[in-house]
């Protein structure tokens, strides 16, 4: 089971705002069959975002939700050319991690997401994703750092 595939990497994300960016990233999950209902999932993400914006210092946005529309834990990685405001105080986000978890996902699945969340705090991990030349490299970095 993979957390991310090359289809779930959008290196030239072109979106005006959070909602649009999230929708585009989530669309990749619909295409791959990991998300059964785009509207439901987007609604769950929006609710989480409304509780408090998930933007973090250092140009990071981590929209995320547990949703009944999600079939397996998934990560979608987006790298917008121009930053998207994600509610962080120090400016727009240039690295976006959309984290999708199934409702009531098993412990093993959740542990992978937990490991991913921990990695996001590492500057070298983020930098390597910023520097990745293509989708395959992004997938390879995530697989190496998180899944194993």
């Amino acid at each position, binding site marked *: 089971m993979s957390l991310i595939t090359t289809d779930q990497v959008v290196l030239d994300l072109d979106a005006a705002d959070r909602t649009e960016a999230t929708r585009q990233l989530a669309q990749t999950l619909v295409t791959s069959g990991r998300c059964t209902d785009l509207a439901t999932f987007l609604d769950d993400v929006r609710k989480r975002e409304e509780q*408090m914006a998930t933007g973090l210092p250092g140009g990071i946005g981590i929209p995320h939700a*547990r949703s009944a529309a999600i079939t397996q834990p998934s990560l979608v990685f987006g790298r917008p050319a121009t930053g998207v405001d994600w509610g962080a105080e120090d400016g727009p986000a240039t690295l976006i991690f959309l984290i999708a978890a199934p409702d009531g996902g098993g412990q093993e699945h959740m542990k992978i997401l*937990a490991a991913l969340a921990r990695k996001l705090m590492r500057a070298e991990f983020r930098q390597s994703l910023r520097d990745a030349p293509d989708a395959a490299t992004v997938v390879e970095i995530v697989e190496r750092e998180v899944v194993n």
Partner: protein
Amino acid sequence: MKFVGVTSCPTGIAHTYMAAEALEVAARDAGHEMIVETQGSAGSDPLDPAVIAAADGVVFAHDLEVVGRDRFAGKPTIDVGVKKAISDGPGLITQAVAAVEQFRRDPGSVAVTVAGGSSAATGLTTKVESGVGTATRIRQWLMTGVSYMIPFVAAGGILIALSFMLAQIAIGEDGAIEIVKYSLTASGEDAAYNIAQNFDLLSLTSWAALLFVMGAAAFGFLVPILSGFIAFAIADRPGIVPGIVGGSIAVTMQAGFLGGIATGFLGGFVARWISRWKVHKGVRGVMPVVVIPLLSTLVTAGIFITLLGRPIKWLMDNLTEGLNGMTGSSAVLLGLILGAMMGFDLGGPVNKVAYTFATTGLGVAGAATDAPQLKIMAAVMAAGMVAPLAMALSTAVRPGLFTEPERENGKAAWLLGLSFISEGAIPFAAADPVRIIASSVVGSAATGALAMLFGTTLRAPHGGLWVLPLVGKFALFVLALAIGVVIMAGIVIALKSREQSKAALTATPLAA
């Protein structure tokens, strides 16, 4: 140094772990050791008790209640929202180091985790979360008090309603009038009404009286419990004594549930203030059992009695005088004012004045069936039934606007409202005073005015549904009541819906 910590967030898939990572990395970078228990959705591996025992300090970065807080008792603690750890892990570690150093110099001056505090696993719980705005916090304090009060409302209210019902069967149409004369202390001329001395196993009246005195006893706790647990939410355990004693004094002073809210806040803040004093080591042991309860009660009750005693008396005297001065003016206007008063504080001073005005009138009404005093009584009772019935209706129509305990209380409120037990609405009013009181005043005033306009009459001072045979023009009485109930329920739903959608849009919790 060695640190332990707990992180948590609402979704439990991202911030919990990021905060844990940030703290552990920051601690290591600063040359310390730290292990964090992540209370998230990947399950939490509880910290080894030996690791906790060896730790110098604790950092809680959480948006949910820390599970098993007791395990960290007695250690200097930094307690923040989860996002703080993510945005400034090194800063928190610096703070934690400073707290530990300060603790070593002077243990009394640093916040430590308190055993038996607000642990989710054991003991009493509050609805207070960390890292929320002032308005939310006030609401959580109120809700904590309300959640402990609701069972008393249900127990007492249903016992009284059942007693009216039995009395109706046993005594006849005057049952509800007769039954409230019973008590546990009646003596002298009224000795026959002492149910403790005269209980008769085979008498239905005795059983009704028994239920009544028990229900009344339970009702005596409404305001003290509300007040006590508001104070508990604010100050934790030290708040309970000044809160409950203050609330009890509020009852005796006829200050109603608004008085109880006042003593709850007063008691809570006083207790919290005193419990944060820096005291000598020798005194620290007796702080929780002697010093805090003694001083906080002294201050809370002292302030309430001396400062509010006269204003309450003044208010009641003036309202009574104002009502007496209205004889001869428009009956509908009088009904409107009496109704508004009944709905305002649900058993508090303003309500008492209106009710006493009506029952006093009954005494001089004589035998005439359409005396103005009988109309006033009808208007007052109808108005007093509006709030609990409207809240029951609101919770039935729009359950999503209410909390689980409120919905349960809503079911009991049907019976309480029909029995003219206004207290059935107190949990709602105490949890959200401004909206509920505003709605209640409008709905109750409408019913009061209509009851007067329709010329309904009543010669029983209480009983609600159970004295309907004593109501003149009872179909119109019911109509006046129904209109007020619908009006109030409509306003409640409108105000609460607006609040809810607004909260969804502008929620800016520091929570993650």
